């Protein structure tokens, strides 16, 4: 289990009423405008976070492999800690993490993503959605959201 500290400041007007993946990202299409929604420190943090995960992962992978009998599947749990109880941001960060992992790890990796317990008001709802692959797949078919995620993950 890997814990990440993700600090960020509240940027832009975000729909806080529901737990769903942000769909109203239309107005943030331009890259410069994205910084209003996802300010620069956040973008850098996400990148650091993911790089940190990937560097640490080989160690975790080996441990799991010893325990799993001839099954190359690796099950990993990633926990991230948003320092502000801001629903949409936690969901977005989790989604960015999910996408980065999907693109970087071999397909046999099964990853569960969780918000660190006790640190978020609606953590159960955020976790449930982040680990529902149908919900994630549908969200990523929204081109605006995908572009936002891509911008967050851009080095």
């Amino acid at each position: 289990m890997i814990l990440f500290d993700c600090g960020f400041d509240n940027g832009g007007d975000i729909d806080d009423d529901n737990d769903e993946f942000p769909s109203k990202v239309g107005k943030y299409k331009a890259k410069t405008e994205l910084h209003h929604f996802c300010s620069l420190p956040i973008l850098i943090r996400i990148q650091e976070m993911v790089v940190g995960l990937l560097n640490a992962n080989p160690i975790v992978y080996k441990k799991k492999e010893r325990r799993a009998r001839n099954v190359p599947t690796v099950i990993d749990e990633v926990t991230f800690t948003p320092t502000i109880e801001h629903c949409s941001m936690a969901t977005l960060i989790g989604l960015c993490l999910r996408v980065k992992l999907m693109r970087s790890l071999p397909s046999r990796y099964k990853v569960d993503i969780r918000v660190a317990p006790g640190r978020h008001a609606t953590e159960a709802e955020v976790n449930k959605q982040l680990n529902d692959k149908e919900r994630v797949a549908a969200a990523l078919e929204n081109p605006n959201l995908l572009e936002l995620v891509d911008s967050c993950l851009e080095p």
Partner: protein
Amino acid sequence: MELLDGELELREIQKLEGHTDRVWSLAWNPTGTGVAGMLASCSGDKTVRIWQKGPSGSWDCSAVLEDTHTRTVRSCAWSPSGKLLATASFDGTTAIWERVGGEFECVATLEGHENEVKSVSWNASGSLLATCARDKTVWIWEAQPGNEFECVSVLQGHTQDVKMVQWHPFLDVLVSVGYDNSVKVWTEDGDDDWHCVQTLGEAGSGHTSTVWALSFNSAGDRMVTCSDDLTLKIWDTSQNPSETSGDGSGSWSHLCTLSGYHDRTIFSVHWSRDGLIASGAADDAIRLFTESKDRMVDQPSYKMLVKREKAHDMDVNSVQWNLKEPKLLASASDDGTIKIWELSEVSKLVEHMLLQEFAAGTGVDRHQTF
């Protein structure tokens, strides 16, 4: 079919490749041509593929239904006549395709859901269609002449994304399951007045996380549900004769829970004509369960018969028994492939292998009858 403990296995017959993204769902044509029929598959690549057994005996892709849905096709279902195929998509629409010879033509598009449609199901007579979506609703459509479909009811009740709908095998009773962890039973009062007659929730031995799928047994008196809570639950209507109104709707009660068999989300479950329950899960495995004939136990119980690890390279999203050949099973996966399996007795295989060994060793003609 006589089932011998520990002597069954799922033998891979063929791997069907062609889709360029994950395959979400499968449906066997209930009629079809030839011995085993026709299989429809739908995918994240926005297409639906039709597979048929060719003269050589291998399964080939006979049609690709494309340029209609603009997003993932999540679910497909054949009408009871086998002539129509309904496909449900994340683009919010449900398309109806008509089979004309070997070709398929889109003859209707059902619109109305506010967002991704997750599942579609035909009732036993083919007069009604049900769809459900992330908008938390279940829609009931009436099939009219000329391939016209009219929405006759929008069912509200689920508090979250509805994952699957399934009609009872012979009654006009609809069951829906979803992200709110519940199972809901819907019937009609007459005059298109549909309402929820029962909710099987967490409080009443229900699931504690998203319910992904359900399947009825052929007798229609039991159903199995599968969930993200890592369990399968069997429900039945035959235990309370005083409350059963004979329409299969009231008093579904929890019969048993199969836990400890799965360690990742179970996405699909299907009950065969012969009483075998197949499950497809996020650990890439397919499992088969059957009712235990253990006379020591009062309560009906179920046990795992077969576990096929590494059935696919990634999550198994759908398992479907062939409707005419009860030993044939199809599975679909995130790895973009479909596999056809045959349930066979290991003992026969071993016997065959031994005979081969013997014949090779002693130089005896292996065709000689013993």
